[in-house]
């Protein structure tokens, strides 16, 4: 992070802060898991010769559909993981700010997370 300007051309690689490392790691995992699930869904779809399903599986039915190896279930879960990744990312930032005892940004991040969840709840009504 604190690369003196005169060394900048040499030190091209940015040294990540803990917060940045956490974000990168969470996003990498989120995308990897999501792509793996979607790929599994696509393969299952091809194997079963059903092609791509229309419509997602509701959350409540997801475990049973996954156990039944329904392609739609794996595709749905892949989408859920993709959608959930930013939530986890914000939560991860919150943890990092707590560890750094950065009170102001603990508050800021907590508000963001809260409003995100509130938006979801309001949207369901």
């Amino acid at each position: 992070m604190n690369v003196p300007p005169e060394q900048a051309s040499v030190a091209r690689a940015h040294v990540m802060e803990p917060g940045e490392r956490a974000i990168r790691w969470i996003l990498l995992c989120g995308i990897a898991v999501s792509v793996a699930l979607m790929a599994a869904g696509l393969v299952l779809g091809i194997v079963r010769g059903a092609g791509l399903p229309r419509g997602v599986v509701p959350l409540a039915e997801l475990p049973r559909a996954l156990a039944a190896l329904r392609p739609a279930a794996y595709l749905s879960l892949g989408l859920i993981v993709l959608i959930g990744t930013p939530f986890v990312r914000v939560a991860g930032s919150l943890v990092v700010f707590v560890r750094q005892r950065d009170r102001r940004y603990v508050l800021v991040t907590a508000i963001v997370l809260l409003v995100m969840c509130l938006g979801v709840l309001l949207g369901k009504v």
Partner: protein
Amino acid sequence: MAFVAGVFGSMLGVGGGIIMVPMLSMAFGVPIKVAIATSIVCVIATSSMAQIAFVSRGMTNVRLGMLLEVATTVGAVVGGVTAVLIDGRVLQFCFAAVLVYVAWQMNRHGGDVTPARTGVLEANYYDPATRRDVRYGVRRTRLGFVLSLGAGNVSGLLGVGGGAFKVPIMNLLMGVPLKATIATSNLMIGVTAAASAAIFYGRGYMDPYYAVPAALGILVGARLGPRLAVRLSARALGIIFQVVLLVFAVMMLLRGLGLGL
């Protein structure tokens, strides 16, 4: 198409829902709600994938992003609630007008803002285009916060992500260099989009038939976008951004006139 959207979206820090939604619904005959849901998934994919590259280069100002996210998310939620109060058509014309104004302002400024040390939310990154380490601080944080509330509100009202506003606010007003602005905006749009996507999923508008191929295409495209954004000169990036803003403005006008969407 998803690949191209991923490249541009991640290069410019915008989601591109304004273009993606009408394209899906007109060219592919996707029902409008499903088209919106698909485009939101694409925004998340763009944000997550591009952020891996931006964050490891130190281009994203994580704290600034988080601070402004408070404004945009609150604005968006309020916008969703107040949507019934304002005539959508008036809003669409205003949106188009503001986009044109912003593009003109960016054009008038020519190149990028001059980074200045202000002691507020300072950050630095290495710019391969100029081979310099750029150190900058944020100006007018409060005004930027208030305007972000407005941007979030409008995006909640019109159902668009609002990256097109976030970039000019941070760049022109708050003095954040364009590349850091794009990276930070890219981080922010993922948050707003995720909240909306969860709602669309719950209401059953998500269709894997469109969303899965689109997301996979976007993910590939969004690997390329940040590389371009990092390597291109800020000037070239600015010009591309202005053109995209004008395209957005035209799309919004068409929507306001009831043509297309």
